[in-house]
């Protein structure tokens, strides 16, 4: 019984991730190519995809290392960019609270924007903790695998990918595909509008901080519009 639920949920996770997994691929290629073009050892740059598993942070850190920034600057930049994961951690926490300990303390390794977005959508209409954790494991692993494989291919392929295709456009489209289904009413729309607006206004701030304050401002705006 439980096994059938798990299998069904895992399949649903892979299915939900599939179109977006393809979009993660170009992002990974962009990162891999950047590693190849930098002064960073390709093995070290590739290992970062296992250690950190977060594209935007890895790209910014790579850039800083290449510019001979101090290690404390490099590490704190990565952590600031990834601070948004604390918000996803909060959003997922009520669901994860019902998972056995070994799941609760290992699954977060796979927590990415994509994994959080598809899981939160699935959790809206799926209450069973068994189905919920298998969905997350399968979906999140799909994204992680795509990230690992594509960053390695990017390192190996080097500049072999034609610029003219502008595959980096797949990144904003992927996030649009994750964003739009979350817009269901006035409050979510307010949160998104203010979140985007503040992120744009915050452009001169260091990388990642504009996203963080945009997100926080968006959440606050959504709460206010609910009154």
């Amino acid at each position, binding site marked *: 019984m439980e096994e059938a639920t798990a299998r069904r949920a895992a399949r649903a996770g892979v299915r*939900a991730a599939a*179109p977006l997994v*393809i979009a993660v691929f170009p992002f990974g290629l962009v990162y891999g190519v950047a590693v190849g073009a930098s002064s960073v050892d390709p093995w*070290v740059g590739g290992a*970062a995809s296992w*250690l*950190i*598993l977060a594209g935007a942070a890895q790209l910014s850190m790579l850039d800083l290392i290449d510019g001979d920034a101090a*290690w404390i600057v*490099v*590490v704190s930049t*990565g952590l600031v960019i990834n601070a948004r994961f*604390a*918000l*996803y*951690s*909060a*959003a*997922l*926490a*009520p669901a*994860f*609270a*019902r998972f056995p300990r070994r799941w609760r303390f290992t699954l*977060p390794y796979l927590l990415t*924007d994509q994994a959080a*977005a598809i899981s*939160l959508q699935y959790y809206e209409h799926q209450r069973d903790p068994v189905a919920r954790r298998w969905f997350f494991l399968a979906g999140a692993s799909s994204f992680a695998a795509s990230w690992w494989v594509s960053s390695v291919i990017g390192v190996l392929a080097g500049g072999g990918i034609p610029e003219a*295709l*502008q595959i980096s*456009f*797949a990144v*904003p*489209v992927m*996030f*649009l*595909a994750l*964003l739009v*289904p*979350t*817009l269901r009413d006035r*409050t*979510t729309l307010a*949160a*998104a509008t*203010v*979140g*985007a607006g*503040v*992120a*744009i206004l915050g*452009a001169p701030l260091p990388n990642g901080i*504009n996203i963080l304050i*945009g*997100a*926080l*401002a*968006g*959440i606050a705006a*959504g709460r206010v519009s609910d009154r």
Partner: protein
Amino acid sequence: MFTLAGVGTFLIRMSVISLVGRGVTVSPPVEATLRLIAPAVLAAIVADTLVLDGDGLNTEWTWFVAGAVAAGVSWRWRSAGATMVAGMATLWLLLAVF
């Protein structure tokens, strides 16, 4: 450096999840706040990756048109696959024509 950032990132991901244990009930105001997290964060990332280019504004109008088409498709059909295809196809069409 990557190891340090990796450990830090894992702790961030774990943060709230590790604090909220079994039997914790979430009050309605907290739940209303939690459901705003995904739209707010994702919208900020879309803005950052689509509208911005480094510190300045992105001047590739083709990206805006293709982005709008992708958003429209996503809104109408709620399908990530269709959204991806529509967005990339529109961009490549525009790049081929202009």
